């Protein structure tokens, strides 16, 4: 098990380097001179020139990359061009919002998606199964932007139950944060909810057809017991993987959700940074998001190894 973990951890370094390399050169390839974009339409040519030199953009690209790499290794991601503050502090400020949003979305998606999937599998080919399948398909297909808007119109504008925008303040109590996060995390989670439901359903169906489940049933065990102790545990392995992968999708979807619900998160920061060519901020942010994504994958893989002893054995674990 330890060997497995160490090996996976070592893989993180080259992956991050590759991510950094890609994003650095992608930012160079997109048209739009950062100095000109940042200074805006009224800028004079001499101001743009001066600003370019100040940013080091007048040096050869490879020199710029080497300098950037050197700085990153010492933990210095530079200063954002739009905010004139440390990239890292800007990211750290917004990280909690995005994590809260993604995790709550995943939570809502899982607590509704998994039971719905199990229900559909056990009532296979019934009206219930049919309705759940259709609903999950709707959930997968609905655009976040539109669904978010509908949620605001219904729950904030017409019913007046929940606030339309913003993140709330923890100093006003936990409820203030919770009531602000319900609508956005529902909007963001709906797609994952659909995917998790469908995945749970098919995974359960497959397991339920296995011989050992039939044997357990034949032994006269209670259906509930068979379902939860025998079937679900095995069906859960692929579901955990899907949930882990969903977190990546959710981080990406957070961009849209944060825009609709005006949440101060990483997604909104990223969009602003790209549109205004704040390359140091984009690079820093991509690196952090990539790191989170890799970390989550690592955790999922480890969990997977725990749930399925075969994987531990394959890596020559201690069992």
């Amino acid at each position: 098990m330890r060997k497995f973990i160490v090996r996976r951890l070592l893989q993180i370094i080259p992956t991050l380097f590759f991510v950094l390399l890609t994003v650095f050169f992608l930012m160079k390839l997109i048209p739009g001179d950062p100095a000109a974009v940042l200074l805006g339409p009224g800028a004079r040519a001499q101001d743009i020139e001066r600003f370019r030199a100040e940013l080091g953009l007048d040096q050869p690209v490879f020199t710029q990359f080497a300098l950037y790499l050197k700085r990153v290794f010492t933990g210095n991601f530079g200063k954002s061009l739009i905010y004139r503050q440390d990239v890292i502090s800007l990211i750290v400020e917004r990280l909690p919002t995005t994590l809260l949003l993604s995790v709550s979305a995943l939570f809502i998606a899982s607590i509704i998606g998994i039971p719905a999937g199990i229900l559909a599998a056990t009532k296979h080919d019934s009206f219930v199964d049919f309705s759940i399948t259709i609903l999950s398909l709707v959930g997968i297909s609905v655009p976040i932007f539109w669904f978010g808007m509908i949620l605001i119109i219904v729950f904030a504008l017409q019913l007046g139950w929940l606030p339309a925008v913003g993140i709330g303040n923890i100093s006003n109590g936990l409820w203030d944060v919770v009531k602000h996060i319900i609508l956005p995390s529902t909007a963001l989670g709906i797609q994952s909810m659909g995917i998790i439901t469908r995945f749970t359903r098919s995974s359960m169906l497959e397991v339920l057809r296995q011989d050992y489940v039939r044997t357990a049933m034949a032994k006269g065990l209670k259906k509930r017991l068979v379902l939860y102790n025998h079937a679900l545990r095995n069906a859960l392995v692929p579901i955990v993987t899907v949930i882990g992968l969903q977190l990546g999708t959710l981080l990406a979807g957070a961009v849209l959700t944060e825009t609709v619900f005006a949440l101060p998160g990483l997604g909104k920061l990223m969009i602003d940074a790209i549109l205004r060519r704040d390359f140091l901020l984009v690079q820093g942010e991509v690196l952090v998001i990539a790191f989170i994504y890799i970390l989550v994958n690592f955790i999922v893989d480890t969990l997977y190894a725990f749930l399925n002893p075969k994987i531990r054995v394959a890596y020559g674990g201690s069992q």
Partner: protein
Amino acid sequence: MRKYLVIMFLVVVLSFSAFAAEKYDSELVVGTDQNPTTMDPAMYQDLASSQVMRNVFETLVAYTADVKEIEPVIAESWTVSDDLTVWTFKLRENVFFQKGKFQDGRNVTAEDVKYSFEREMEISPMVRIYMIDTIEVVDTYTVKITLQYPYAPFLTVLTDIGAAIVPKEEVEGWGDDFVLHPIGSGPYVLKEWVKDDHMSFERYEEYWGEKPYVKNLTYKFIPDKAVLTLALLSGQVDISSDILDQDIPKVTADPNVEAVMVGGNNIYAAYMNATKGPTTDPKLREAIFKAIDVTQIAKVIFPNESGVPAYGPIPPGSWAYNPDVQDFYTPYDPEGAKQILKDAGYSNGLKLKMYTSDDPNRRKMAIVMQSMLKQVGIDLEVISLEWGSFIEVSGNGEADIYAIGWTWYPDPEFFMYYMFHSSTAGTYGNGGRYNNPEVDKYIELGESSADQDERIMYYRKAEELVMKDRFFFPGYHKLVVMGVSDKVKGFTVSSDMTIRVFAPGTNVYVE
């Protein structure tokens, strides 16, 4: 009887004073779709930042909320030499900085003006007071500024928050963190700033000037304009910075809010290439003007009339706007256009490329132009780009036509110089690389004349020449549309899109 009168009198007085006290307890929430990025005047590059900074910082002079008059703020009075190069400002002696960590609310003096302006010129990525040559402290409250050349709109430039007066002790004491601990001489102090979410200000009770009614002022940042309108309708914000044309009926239908529209200081137009490609042919440009019915552009983009057709570059919000601007306009005449094209040998058709940003209004303008040009046999290819890529293409002189949007102060200089003076060729403003020495001459005369009527005449003359050259096809002027709750009193929508809660002649309160 007398007893009753006394009681009645007391009731009236008490309720009145209670009301007055309430006025001073006003709480206001402003919703904007743009997000401020800095609280350091020397560092700002966008309207969203300048707007919030006006609460903390002050300038020597400032615009009234209707953006028509420039009024003294830190300056009490000023004189200017006849050649418009030496400007002497007498400061008020009772202006104080807010108390901070590094000074305890001392007087604002001429030294501070010198320090602030020199700092702006040294570190700002975009120097707004670049025409300054030297700054001289005459005495504690008198400062003499010499310009490199005569510049009539200098006072306008000084209203820019980039020219705000900052205390040296705080700037140097905080260093890079001054952005997070801004201290100026303004009526509000920054209480909290959760980036991308909200910013809240609290009235500074020892402010040197008139006391603002609003005690707690919050700006809520809501990037999506449709959602911003929903936030206004649901009562989460009291003022919203912009309402999309399609949302106007929703707002007018609600009895508790109002959509207030004023003429904006902006122009959206199609700028044609003056140095390269087919548009260098004057015959073709004449045909293009004749082929397009400009009234249709505004009708398509603004079904709810939050925009008007444009006939010249100077917007109706400017004091130099010419009500007779249509006199130099080449009117719609599709048959005439076809004839010109035929005579000029374009009967086999012609292809042109037009670049636009991804702004929906500008794209609609390009598409209306495309369909009208098609009817006279011109094939207009419309290419829509994201902003950063767009300004690169518009400035590099490769585009046949690009969709320019320009918005600034009401002084015509900020339209005519930046879009038509030959020295700006190759920038986004003059990406068409327009160069007409006669236009240059009138713009320069406008810059260096002290008399407002004379200046109006020069800029109008330049505008007339521009319209006769036909490189600049004006499309529309957008109105500034803000949503205002009926609880908000004393608020004026500004043509420069800045939300002014407290400004010369304006003191907003909430009922």
